[in-house]
């Protein structure tokens, strides 16, 4: 590496930047832009050095996993019904759980996973694909649904 900085240091710095962005930036788009830049820095550091392909594969996979995990954690923090109930029980401010659950059906339509005609809903091709993937994952994990 130029300047003697190892790929390990670069990748730890990249994950630290993503962690800081997670705390400081509440918007998903802004967080993702910073995270994409951090992953790109890791890729560039790999390309600019004589690092082994195995090491590059591990750090890039780790950085991508960190980005994905933090994105999903943000989704959970904002949308989790159980967490909202816990916050309400702890004296914070939270919405009615039944209302939160009902809102998800409109989200399914907004995300193109289901189509609604009046009061009736049906899955789109994307919605069916997600159901199949989730069912396959459940089978692998041995979870009944």
């Amino acid at each position: 590496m130029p300047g003697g900085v190892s790929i390990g240091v670069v990748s730890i710095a990249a994950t630290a930047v993503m962690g800081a962005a997670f705390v400081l930036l509440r918007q998903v788009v802004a967080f993702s832009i910073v995270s994409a830049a951090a992953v790109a820095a890791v890729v560039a550091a790999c390309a600019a050095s004589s690092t082994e392909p195995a090491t590059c594969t591990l750090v890039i996979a780790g950085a991508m996993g960190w980005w994905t995990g933090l994105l999903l954690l943000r989704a959970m923090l904002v949308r989790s019904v159980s967490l909202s109930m816990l916050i309400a029980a702890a004296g914070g401010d939270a919405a009615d759980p039944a209302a939160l659950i009902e809102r998800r059906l409109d989200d399914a339509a907004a995300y193109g996973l289901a189509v609604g005609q009046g009061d009736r809903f049906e899955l789109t091709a994307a919605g069916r694909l997600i159901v199949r993937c989730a069912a396959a994952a459940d089978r692998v994990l041995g979870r009944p649904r």
Partner: protein
Amino acid sequence: MTNVAVACAVFAASVIVSERLTTHKLQSALGRVLIVHLAGLLIATALVRTVDPAVLAVFWFGSLAGWIGVRSHLESSILLQMLHALDRGATTREQVLARCLEEYGPTARIDELVRGRFLARTPRGVTPSRKGRLAARAALFFR
């Protein structure tokens, strides 16, 4: 690339062991899952000596963060439950909501929070435990 294969194999083994320890929801067994993965990381570090331990740690914790996120969504996402309800023949808003509220509604969620020791049942009703108050404070901070 043997190093990558070994690291992935040990990570997969850690996932399998932690799955065995997760009897209900992942959030209820997070401490045990972390202990298993720390042990897995130590084993991987011992097996893959030619890779910088910092690189292995980045790979491990990144993959673990991604896995926990995906796993939690698979078991808890209400949106996913609704898609399953639609796939099983529910067609109207009332049918979908009735199925989701029955299987994943407030009662089931309170039971799970009690099982995870985030809430405790007391004579005065359900109250948050110390762990629950800490989790709620952390969630409000990071939200």
